[in-house]
């Protein structure tokens, strides 16, 4: 493979583009393929198969050929409400687990660049922040402030927009109160089942890093649930 192709892959990934790398395992030729476009030269006759593999999101060799397709899709975006201690550990864990992290906190003294270097932080209320974040069914929400003023609007948004995962920090009791507030504003009980509350897999730990581990574990396990 040409080093230029590797550089192009890195560049496209940093631009959050979704694409595939097609390689001819016989002669070593490879090229980058963007869905909807026609691949070049000898790859062109496989365009349908490549497109199919891309949508299945499963790397592999095209049947009865020596053409290998590797897919590059964007990682799951995790929006964390609350620039708190747990968030710092979540960022650390996420680095090696293929999650994109965005922190939202209207409280400037929490959401500072000094506390969160190299992280995307939006120093706004959730409703304003969601105006500038692209969300879809691959987006996850983690609320950590346990302040209803900040957490609730984000939860409402995530429920309405069918997020991939929703988790809210707080005890069982806090979660019950949260659910009754959401019921009052018209959400249905079945919709609220989507919220993981108390958040995370029960590992028994109580420290911020242990809670972060339990949250990230739950996110990983949800990712592989079919």
């Amino acid at each position, binding site marked *: 493979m040409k080093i230029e192709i*590797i550089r192009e892959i890195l560049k496209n990934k940093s631009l959050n583009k979704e694409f595939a790398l097609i390689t001819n*395992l016989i*002669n070593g030729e490879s090229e980058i393929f963007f869905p909807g476009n026609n691949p070049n030269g000898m790859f062109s006759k496989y365009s349908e198969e490549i497109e199919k593999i891309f949508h299945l999101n499963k790397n*592999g060799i095209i049947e009865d050929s020596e053409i290998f397709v590797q897919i590059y899709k964007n990682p799951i975006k995790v929006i964390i409400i609350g620039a708190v201690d747990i968030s710092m550990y979540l960022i650390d864990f996420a680095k090696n687990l*293929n999650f994109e992290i965005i922190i939202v906190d209207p409280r400037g003294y929490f959401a500072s660049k000094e506390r969160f270097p190299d992280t995307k932080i939006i120093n706004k209320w959730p409703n304003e922040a969601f105006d500038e974040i692209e969300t879809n069914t691959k987006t996850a929400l983690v609320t950590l402030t346990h302040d209803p003023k900040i957490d609730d609007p984000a939860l409402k948004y995530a429920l309405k927009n069918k997020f991939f995962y929703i988790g809210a920090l707080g005890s069982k009791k806090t979660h019950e109160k949260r659910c009754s507030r959401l019921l009052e504003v018209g959400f249905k009980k079945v919709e609220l089942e989507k919220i993981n509350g108390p958040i995370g897999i029960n590992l028994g730990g109580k420290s911020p890093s242990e809670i972060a581990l339990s949250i990230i574990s739950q996110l990983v396990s949800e990712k592989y649930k079919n």
Partner: protein
Amino acid sequence: MSNFSEKKIFEEADNWIKNNKKVSLATVVQTWGSSPLGIGSRMIVSEDGNFLGSVSGGCVESKVVEECISLMKTKKICKKIDFKVSNENAWEMGLACGGDISIYIEEIK
């Protein structure tokens, strides 16, 4: 399929190339039965035997490093290597999981 660590591997490959080293890339392209790492897992190997990433979680890496180094000494561009339980070599290498894997190696130029 996640390819998070691939970023690190590719960035390092770029560094090695910038330092005028010959580098090969190994990729898992097919698996049968239980295999430790999924299709698309990658590893880079430099001509001096340094490597980063993984294609089998430790079972066949040493053989892949060896194959990559010898590939870079020839004019060949690429090669596909099958590690099967029935294959004597793989037996020696000990694909303990009992799965078969195909690994494609190519020089980065």
